[in-house]
């Protein structure tokens, strides 16, 4: 892998606590000295959060599709449930 991808892997190992204690210490020392690396770590952390948001959004769309499918089925239990809320 090229250098920048190895660095991304190293940041990931750091963020996911996958490093051995010695490597972890070295990385933390590097973080103190290397400000651009610190920025990259913060950005990569944001990237994982965005991937999580994206995953949730897609999952909610899948759940909504199931909801609509069940709702549009004639005489389904969903129709009976709606009547619970009609007063």
């Amino acid at each position: 892998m090229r250098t920048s991808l190895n660095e991304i892997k190293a940041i990931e190992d750091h963020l996911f606590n996958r490093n051995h204690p010695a490597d972890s210490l070295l990385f933390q020392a590097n973080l103190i000295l290397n400000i651009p690396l610190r920025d990259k770590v913060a950005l990569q952390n944001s990237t994982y959060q965005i991937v999580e948001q994206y995953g949730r959004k897609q999952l909610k769309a899948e759940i909504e599709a199931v909801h609509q499918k069940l709702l549009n089925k004639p005489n389904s239990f969903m129709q009976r449930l709606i009547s619970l809320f009609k007063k």
Partner: protein
Amino acid sequence: MQSKPINTKQSREELFTTLYQKAFPIVAKYVAKMGGSFDQAKDIFQDALVIYYEKVLSNSVTLQSSDKAYILGIAKHLWLKTYRDNAGNIPLDVANVDQPQEEQHQYASNKLMHYLETTGQKCMEVLKAFYYDKLPLTQITQLFGYSGTHSATVQKYKCLEKVRDTVKQKSLHYEDFLE
């Protein structure tokens, strides 16, 4: 008892259909009893399913016959958190001071998500498969048609780099836009 994997689209559809049939009626009855609407019951239930899915994938809960009770527990918690602790209970100073900043942040975040969904969807799907659905490497290799697991791993890091660069560029851009 459910023992098959749930992290593919087809298996999720089966799982959510089953859970809807098993657990949505009791959640809906609970929300109706508490004076809520059908749409509120739906929102609460769907959020509970998201939490349930994430918990199962992180191995902090196993799929078993008590999943109905587990989902009802989450739903009740969400109901109380969302509709009992309503905005009226938030101190005025906190509500007023933080809201515009939060709205701006949300706006920038939505813009960024929209950008990634339209221009970087392939990478977002690859990253979702790795980090959100936690699919095994061999399955990801097959799903996206990579030549091998090494190639899939390299692609993961390339996508991380691409999305990270976009986050950096767009964050700066939206900050400028908001200021």
